[in-house]
């Protein structure tokens, strides 16, 4: 092989993904996104730009929203990672997933996993955001289909329902 990355340079990295302990062999600087998608077959996180601009690879790492295309997998050692696959409880959708469905928050669906995780993060820190705060809070996640209104409405509706219940 002409690969300059020596295979022996791969290292073992342990972290929790969607509540389950996982162990992977990966190059330390491999992108968390690639490890999730290629090794763990968690393809819900998408690559939109590869430079942290679009947010479609967003996942939660120890409760913090990160662009997994910018995170070297080594940095995930010992962390708890949540991907879109970890939100629904079996067939029961997460309340944000329900709201996105009902309010038209998902069109082509490619930004949706990242957008829903960003919304989760937003509501964790601010359970009753104003429309402005939602727009600001989601501005790191790009969507080309919806013009955002129905996403913002979905988050507002989800927040309303959760605080009402």
């Amino acid at each position, binding site marked *: 092989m002409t690969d300059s990355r020596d295979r022996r340079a791969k290292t073992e990295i342990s972290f929790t993904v969607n509540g389950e302990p996982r162990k992977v062999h990966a190059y330390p600087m491999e992108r968390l996104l690639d490890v999730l998608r290629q090794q763990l077959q968690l393809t819900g996180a998408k690559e939109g730009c590869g430079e942290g601009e*679009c947010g479609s690879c967003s996942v939660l790492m120890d409760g913090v929203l990160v662009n997994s295309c910018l995170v070297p997998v080594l940095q995930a050692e010992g962390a708890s990672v949540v991907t879109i696959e970890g939100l629904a409880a079996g067939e029961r959708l997460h309340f944000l997933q329900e709201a996105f469905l009902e309010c038209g928050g998902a069109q082509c669906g490619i930004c949706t996993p990242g957008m829903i995780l960003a919304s989760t993060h937003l509501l964790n820190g601010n359970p009753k955001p104003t429309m402005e705060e939602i727009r600001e809070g989601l*501005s790191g996640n790009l969507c080309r289909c919806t013009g955002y*209104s129905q996403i913002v409405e979905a988050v507002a509706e989800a927040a309303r329902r959760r605080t009402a219940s």
Partner: protein
Amino acid sequence: MNSEHIVGKSVPRKEGRDKVTGRSQYVDDMVLPNMLFGATVRSQIPRGRINKITFGPEIAWNEFVIVSAKDIPGKNCIALIGDDQPCLANEFVNHPEEPILLLAHPDRHLLPKAVEAVSIEYDALPAIFTIEESARRAEIVWGEDNIFKTYLIEKGEVDGVWEEADYIVEGEYTTGAQEQLYIENNGMIAAFDAQGITVWGSLQCPYYIHKALMALCGLPAEKVRVVQMETGGAFGGKEEYPSMIAGHAALLAMKSCKPVKIIYDRMEDMAATTKRHPSRTRHRTAVTRDGKILGGEIDFTIDGGAYATLSSVVLSRGVIHAGGPYYWPSVRIRAKALATNAPPHGAFRGFGAPQSLFAMERHMDRIAQAVGLSPIEIRRRNFLQPGQTTTTEQVVREPIHLGNLLDRALEASDYHSKKKSFANHNQSGATPKGMGIAAFLHGAGFTGSGERYLSSVVGVEGCADGSVRVLVSSTEFGQGTKTVLSQIAAEALSLPYENVSMAQPDTLEVPNSGPTVASRTVMVVGKLVQSAALGIRQTLISSNLLRETYTAEEFRTACQNYVAAHGQFRSWSRYEAPSDIFWDDQKYRGDAYAAFAWAVYIAEVTVDLTTYSVSVDDFVALQEVGKVLHPLLARGQIIGGVAQAIGFGLYEKVVWQNGRMQNNQMTNYIMPTSSDLPPIRVFFEELGNVYGAYGAKGIGELPMDGPAPAILNAVEDALGVRFDSIPLLPEDIMDGLNSHGAAASSQRGDHGLGSAGGVP
């Protein structure tokens, strides 16, 4: 019998659950055993002859599959209309990023280095990059004269109108390239075996690719199979270019006898694939003292890039929409698509109409100023009325009342009181505000004879389990194709929505119901789904398996019994042109579209004179699109289109250097984020349409047409300074204000630029 209507209801999106849970399978989510990864070696220069290709010593080339033009088993072209675009450049390159070689390897990480290690020597040839250079034939880069296509529309006696005119108003308007910027980059997987070639990909038009692969691979129809994966946005950007990527993946798969996946990264996708055609439109209009248009000349030119691809069709839609929703007693419209040495420009939502309508709607404000009327009044006095004819002499048979649409939009936007309060507000301060209007139309379906040629076929199947399945090549990429076509079938069969499913678009499974473009899916394909569904029902009734009225359970049993007795149960429906629609391809005259959607949009803006940035504070989008079959999806289409069009007007600038996009990253090509956009307020009028399924017309492209001119009209209203080019960036506003300031001080007493352009 299900008495409740399903069309008109916001039923759950068919594939929505998979999308919100991340389960949807996009092409990059799919893995085949022993799959290789492919990459493309592209031209580094705009135009020249390929002299020598050298493979650098640092790469173990024996591990790679390498494909060049000489490996192509069939014809080296992307079969589309003119077949002038090679799949791989052989001797000459005509634009930067033109594909020359293909590489494949099992480790995707090795490909970028390998691509870099291929060096190509060229004999450079002179290249041209602008409409102006192409028009004056600074260099002939395509055919005899750089001209891909011209059209001429003539109505009435234009040469006679200038003498009668009280005002002759002239203007020139330009629009830039725009990147579709679907969030899922282009990608394809190809596999080759004894059955032939199969491709899975992110795409809009399975049968375009099917046709292209037959020609390229030299295979008969039954040996080519195209499957659409979930597609993460398209907007026209996945109409024609996927044929290129499918061709590349297929060539690598045929040579290696292994599956090959090609996924573009963002930089490659932005640099190499199609964009909206840059345009230049010139208007010269004869107007009476009371603001009536007597006639005019419109010159509409688009930059097609290096190959003809779809430019002739984009030009056609652009030229037909160039006169806007107005009555022209006389008009002469000349249109031209020209070649340059940029990557070919292509399909993008609106397809030529956003360019020509931008010019028309800016020009209406200019006419208003020349005559001394308001933007409202000038439009009202010239709106097309039922019974009048369009520029192609199509009689308006729809009972549309554009004046009423305008009134409703003015009320919704609180136009008059805002204008009044802005007049006060703008007396002082660094944040002038303005209001702008755009009125427009958008034809649904293929232009002219297009639908006749397409001759689309749709199938509906009664399945063995008694459920119903719709068989179409129409693709879902966010608009809601699966949902709305299921609604239509369910409505036609009086069945619950849940009992209808959609076949995956797979050319082995579904007939050619035409491409998913041109706002045609709901209106044209939907109508065929309706009639194919009725065929299922009729067959069951005439076989005495079902009564005229029935429950869903009775239908299920009847369907099961039919399949048990007769086997596969499918009903087909083929497009037949309505008998009252005529189009003359030679004279470019007649019924250009079976139906138009109509709209009035109003933008409210603030210009910050410290940063020169424009913010859109409120946006009213009012349209008549026939019957709205799914209110939530329809509203989503309009808001999304308006957002994309705000980007077109204010943010999205493709920076070119020698035909190559310089800012091919999301970091420096700026599309609107959630915090950049106002709440976009959507209103519908529903007049119905006899040609569409349950009265529907097209909707997808319409919202792309109006926002840019409405916003620029509002900017002029705020500043009193005219801008006629988009995108309009802060630096353009700064330059415009500076040169206006200089002009104003040398021409004291001139009030704004309001009177310029009006020649008494």
